[in-house]
Protein backbone atom coordinates (compact mmCIF):
# COMPACT_ATOMS: atom_id res chain seq x y z
CA UNK A 1 0.00 0.00 0.00
CA UNK A 2 1.66 3.14 -1.13
CA UNK A 3 0.90 6.78 -0.43
CA UNK A 4 -1.48 7.09 -3.32
CA UNK A 5 -3.63 4.34 -2.00
CA UNK A 6 -3.57 5.90 1.42
CA UNK A 7 -4.82 9.20 0.01
CA UNK A 8 -7.61 7.49 -1.85
CA UNK A 9 -8.63 5.69 1.33
CA UNK A 10 -8.69 8.98 3.25
CA UNK A 11 -10.66 10.67 0.53
CA UNK A 12 -13.12 7.81 0.47
CA UNK A 13 -13.55 7.97 4.22
CA UNK A 14 -13.99 11.75 4.03
CA UNK A 15 -16.56 11.46 1.32
CA UNK A 16 -18.44 8.79 3.21
CA UNK A 17 -18.44 10.92 6.36
CA UNK A 18 -19.50 13.98 4.39
CA UNK A 19 -22.32 12.06 2.77
CA UNK A 20 -23.47 10.76 6.08
CA UNK A 21 -23.34 14.28 7.56
CA UNK A 22 -25.24 15.72 4.66
CA UNK A 23 -27.79 12.96 4.89
CA UNK A 24 -28.24 13.67 8.58
CA UNK A 25 -28.48 17.37 7.89
CA UNK A 26 -31.06 16.92 5.20
CA UNK A 27 -33.00 14.60 7.45
CA UNK A 28 -33.07 17.17 10.21
CA UNK A 29 -33.98 19.95 7.81
CA UNK A 30 -36.80 17.86 6.49
CA UNK A 31 -38.08 17.56 10.00
CA UNK A 32 -37.71 21.26 10.52
CA UNK A 33 -39.49 22.07 7.32
CA UNK A 34 -42.22 19.65 8.24
CA UNK A 35 -42.73 21.32 11.60
CA UNK A 36 -42.64 24.77 10.00
CA UNK A 37 -45.21 23.69 7.51
CA UNK A 38 -47.39 22.28 10.25
CA UNK A 39 -47.01 25.44 12.26
CA UNK A 40 -47.93 27.62 9.29
CA UNK A 41 -50.95 25.47 8.59
CA UNK A 42 -52.07 25.72 12.19
CA UNK A 43 -51.40 29.44 12.23
CA UNK A 44 -53.36 29.93 9.07
CA UNK A 45 -56.20 27.84 10.43
CA UNK A 46 -56.29 30.03 13.55
CA UNK A 47 -55.77 33.44 11.95
CA UNK A 48 -58.39 33.17 9.23
CA UNK A 49 -61.30 32.87 11.70
CA UNK A 50 -59.82 35.65 13.78
CA UNK A 51 -59.63 37.85 10.71
CA UNK A 52 -63.18 36.93 9.83
CA UNK A 53 -64.29 37.84 13.32
CA UNK A 54 -62.34 41.11 13.15
CA UNK A 55 -63.98 41.92 9.84
CA UNK A 56 -67.40 41.23 11.35
CA UNK A 57 -66.54 43.42 14.34
CA UNK A 58 -65.37 46.25 12.11
CA UNK A 59 -68.55 45.99 10.08
CA UNK A 60 -70.56 46.29 13.28
CA UNK A 61 -68.49 49.24 14.43
CA UNK A 62 -69.02 50.95 11.10
CA UNK A 63 -72.74 50.38 11.33
CA UNK A 64 -72.80 51.86 14.84
CA UNK A 65 -70.78 54.85 13.65
CA UNK A 66 -73.29 55.37 10.86
CA UNK A 67 -76.11 55.24 13.38
CA UNK A 68 -74.35 57.72 15.65
CA UNK A 69 -73.87 59.99 12.64
CA UNK A 70 -77.56 59.77 11.85
CA UNK A 71 -78.38 60.47 15.50
CA UNK A 72 -76.14 63.52 15.47
CA UNK A 73 -77.72 64.81 12.26
CA UNK A 74 -81.15 64.29 13.75
CA UNK A 75 -80.13 66.06 16.94
CA UNK A 76 -78.77 69.01 14.96
CA UNK A 77 -81.94 69.22 12.89
CA UNK A 78 -84.03 68.99 16.03
CA UNK A 79 -82.03 71.79 17.63
CA UNK A 80 -82.47 73.97 14.57
CA UNK A 81 -86.18 73.23 14.49
CA UNK A 82 -86.52 74.04 18.16
CA UNK A 83 -84.66 77.30 17.66
CA UNK A 84 -86.87 78.24 14.73
CA UNK A 85 -89.97 77.29 16.71
CA UNK A 86 -88.86 79.42 19.65
CA UNK A 87 -88.21 82.33 17.31
CA UNK A 88 -91.61 81.92 15.70
CA UNK A 89 -93.37 81.68 19.05
CA UNK A 90 -91.50 84.72 20.34
CA UNK A 91 -92.35 86.71 17.24
CA UNK A 92 -95.98 85.60 17.41
CA UNK A 93 -96.28 86.49 21.08
CA UNK A 94 -94.58 89.85 20.74
CA UNK A 95 -96.38 90.86 17.55
CA UNK A 96 -99.53 92.18 19.29
CA UNK A 97 -97.41 93.93 21.89
CA UNK A 98 -95.32 95.60 19.22
CA UNK A 99 -98.39 96.61 17.25
CA UNK A 100 -100.20 97.90 20.33
CA UNK A 101 -97.16 99.85 21.48
CA UNK A 102 -96.71 101.28 18.00
CA UNK A 103 -100.37 102.28 17.85
CA UNK A 104 -100.21 103.97 21.24
CA UNK A 105 -97.02 105.77 20.29
CA UNK A 106 -98.53 106.80 16.94
CA UNK A 107 -101.70 108.13 18.55
CA UNK A 108 -99.70 110.02 21.13
CA UNK A 109 -97.50 111.58 18.47
CA UNK A 110 -100.53 112.39 16.28
CA UNK A 111 -102.33 114.12 19.16
CA UNK A 112 -99.19 116.04 20.04
CA UNK A 113 -98.73 117.15 16.44
CA UNK A 114 -102.40 118.07 16.03
CA UNK A 115 -102.44 120.15 19.20
CA UNK A 116 -99.23 121.91 18.23
CA UNK A 117 -100.62 122.65 14.79
CA UNK A 118 -103.89 123.97 16.18
CA UNK A 119 -102.01 126.11 18.70
CA UNK A 120 -99.98 127.57 15.86
CA UNK A 121 -103.17 128.27 13.90
CA UNK A 122 -104.77 129.99 16.90
CA UNK A 123 -101.63 132.06 17.41
CA UNK A 124 -101.77 133.07 13.75
CA UNK A 125 -105.43 134.07 14.17
CA UNK A 126 -104.66 136.09 17.29
CA UNK A 127 -101.80 137.86 15.55
CA UNK A 128 -104.01 138.65 12.55
CA UNK A 129 -106.78 139.95 14.84
CA UNK A 130 -104.29 142.12 16.68
CA UNK A 131 -102.99 143.49 13.38
CA UNK A 132 -106.52 144.28 12.28
CA UNK A 133 -107.29 145.98 15.61
CA UNK A 134 -104.11 147.97 15.39
CA UNK A 135 -104.92 149.02 11.84
CA UNK A 136 -108.43 150.08 12.89
CA UNK A 137 -107.07 152.07 15.82
CA UNK A 138 -104.52 153.74 13.58
CA UNK A 139 -107.19 154.71 11.09
CA UNK A 140 -109.41 156.00 13.88
CA UNK A 141 -106.60 158.08 15.30
CA UNK A 142 -105.78 159.47 11.87
CA UNK A 143 -109.42 160.37 11.37
CA UNK A 144 -109.49 162.03 14.77
CA UNK A 145 -106.31 163.98 13.98
CA UNK A 146 -107.74 165.06 10.67
CA UNK A 147 -110.91 166.17 12.39
CA UNK A 148 -109.07 168.07 15.14
CA UNK A 149 -106.22 169.31 12.95
CA UNK A 150 -103.59 168.21 15.52
CA UNK A 151 -100.41 166.67 14.00
CA UNK A 152 -99.36 164.75 17.16
CA UNK A 153 -99.73 161.00 17.28
CA UNK A 154 -102.01 159.40 19.85
CA UNK A 155 -100.20 158.23 22.95
CA UNK A 156 -102.43 155.28 23.84
CA UNK A 157 -102.13 153.39 20.59
CA UNK A 158 -99.38 150.78 20.63
CA UNK A 159 -98.54 148.23 18.02
CA UNK A 160 -99.84 145.01 19.57
CA UNK A 161 -98.09 142.91 16.96
CA UNK A 162 -94.65 144.47 17.32
CA UNK A 163 -93.29 141.45 19.15
CA UNK A 164 -95.09 138.93 16.98
CA UNK A 165 -95.39 140.60 13.64
CA UNK A 166 -94.81 137.48 11.63
CA UNK A 167 -97.20 134.56 11.80
CA UNK A 168 -95.94 131.87 14.10
CA UNK A 169 -95.46 129.09 11.57
CA UNK A 170 -97.16 127.78 8.53
CA UNK A 171 -95.74 124.34 9.23
CA UNK A 172 -95.71 123.04 12.75
CA UNK A 173 -92.29 122.32 14.15
CA UNK A 174 -92.47 121.06 17.69
CA UNK A 175 -90.07 119.14 19.80
CA UNK A 176 -90.52 115.57 18.68
CA UNK A 177 -88.47 112.62 19.96
CA UNK A 178 -88.29 111.26 16.41
Amino acid at each position, binding site marked *: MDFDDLLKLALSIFLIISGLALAYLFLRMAGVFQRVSASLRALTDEIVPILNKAQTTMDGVNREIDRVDEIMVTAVNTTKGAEAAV*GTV*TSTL*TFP*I*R*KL*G*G*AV*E*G*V*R*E*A*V*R*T*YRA*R*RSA*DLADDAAAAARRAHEAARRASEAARAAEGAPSAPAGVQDPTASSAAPSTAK*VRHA*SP*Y
Partner: protein
Amino acid sequence: MRWFLLAIIGGIVGWLCVQGGPDPRRWPSAAQREFGRMRSAAEEAVEAGKTAASLYEERMERELAAAAGRPGPV
Protein backbone atom coordinates in the same frame (compact mmCIF):
# COMPACT_ATOMS: atom_id res chain seq x y z
CA MET B 1 -132.01 112.98 23.88
CA ARG B 2 -133.65 116.27 23.07
CA TRP B 3 -131.35 118.14 25.42
CA PHE B 4 -128.43 116.32 23.96
CA LEU B 5 -129.35 117.44 20.43
CA LEU B 6 -129.95 120.97 21.65
CA ALA B 7 -126.55 120.97 23.32
CA ILE B 8 -124.88 119.78 20.12
CA ILE B 9 -126.67 122.38 17.98
CA GLY B 10 -125.85 125.08 20.51
CA GLY B 11 -122.23 124.05 20.54
CA ILE B 12 -122.03 124.15 16.75
CA VAL B 13 -123.70 127.59 16.63
CA GLY B 14 -121.39 128.88 19.36
CA TRP B 15 -118.34 127.56 17.61
CA LEU B 16 -119.47 129.23 14.36
CA CYS B 17 -120.04 132.50 16.25
CA VAL B 18 -116.52 132.28 17.68
CA GLN B 19 -114.93 131.47 14.33
CA GLY B 20 -116.97 133.60 11.97
CA GLY B 21 -118.44 136.29 14.16
CA PRO B 22 -122.07 137.02 14.93
CA ASP B 23 -122.96 137.48 11.26
CA PRO B 24 -124.39 134.15 10.02
CA ARG B 25 -123.48 135.04 6.43
CA ARG B 26 -119.81 134.61 7.34
CA TRP B 27 -120.30 131.25 8.97
CA PRO B 28 -119.97 129.08 5.83
CA SER B 29 -116.64 130.63 4.85
CA ALA B 30 -115.40 130.43 8.45
CA ALA B 31 -116.50 126.82 8.75
CA GLN B 32 -114.88 125.96 5.42
CA ARG B 33 -111.63 127.64 6.48
CA GLU B 34 -111.59 125.90 9.85
CA PHE B 35 -112.44 122.53 8.38
CA GLY B 36 -109.61 122.95 5.87
CA ARG B 37 -107.22 123.76 8.68
CA MET B 38 -108.46 120.82 10.69
CA ARG B 39 -108.09 118.51 7.70
CA SER B 40 -104.53 119.61 6.98
CA ALA B 41 -103.63 119.38 10.67
CA ALA B 42 -105.21 115.94 10.90
CA GLU B 43 -103.35 114.72 7.81
CA GLU B 44 -100.09 116.01 9.21
CA ALA B 45 -100.85 114.40 12.57
CA VAL B 46 -101.68 111.08 10.90
CA GLU B 47 -98.40 111.10 8.97
CA ALA B 48 -96.47 111.93 12.13
CA GLY B 49 -98.30 109.17 13.98
CA LYS B 50 -97.54 106.61 11.29
CA THR B 51 -93.87 107.54 11.30
CA ALA B 52 -93.72 107.40 15.09
CA ALA B 53 -95.49 104.02 15.15
CA SER B 54 -93.19 102.46 12.55
CA LEU B 55 -90.09 103.78 14.30
CA TYR B 56 -91.37 102.47 17.63
CA GLU B 57 -92.04 99.01 16.16
CA GLU B 58 -88.61 98.87 14.53
CA ARG B 59 -86.94 99.90 17.77
CA MET B 60 -88.87 97.30 19.73
CA GLU B 61 -88.05 94.63 17.14
CA ARG B 62 -84.36 95.48 17.41
CA GLU B 63 -84.49 95.30 21.19
CA LEU B 64 -86.28 91.94 21.11
CA ALA B 65 -83.83 90.57 18.54
CA ALA B 66 -80.91 91.73 20.64
CA ALA B 67 -82.45 90.10 23.70
CA ALA B 68 -83.01 86.83 21.81
CA GLY B 69 -79.52 86.85 20.28
CA ARG B 70 -80.65 86.88 16.66
CA PRO B 71 -80.09 89.50 13.98
CA GLY B 72 -82.76 92.07 13.87
CA PRO B 73 -83.91 94.46 11.15
CA VAL B 74 -81.23 96.71 9.76
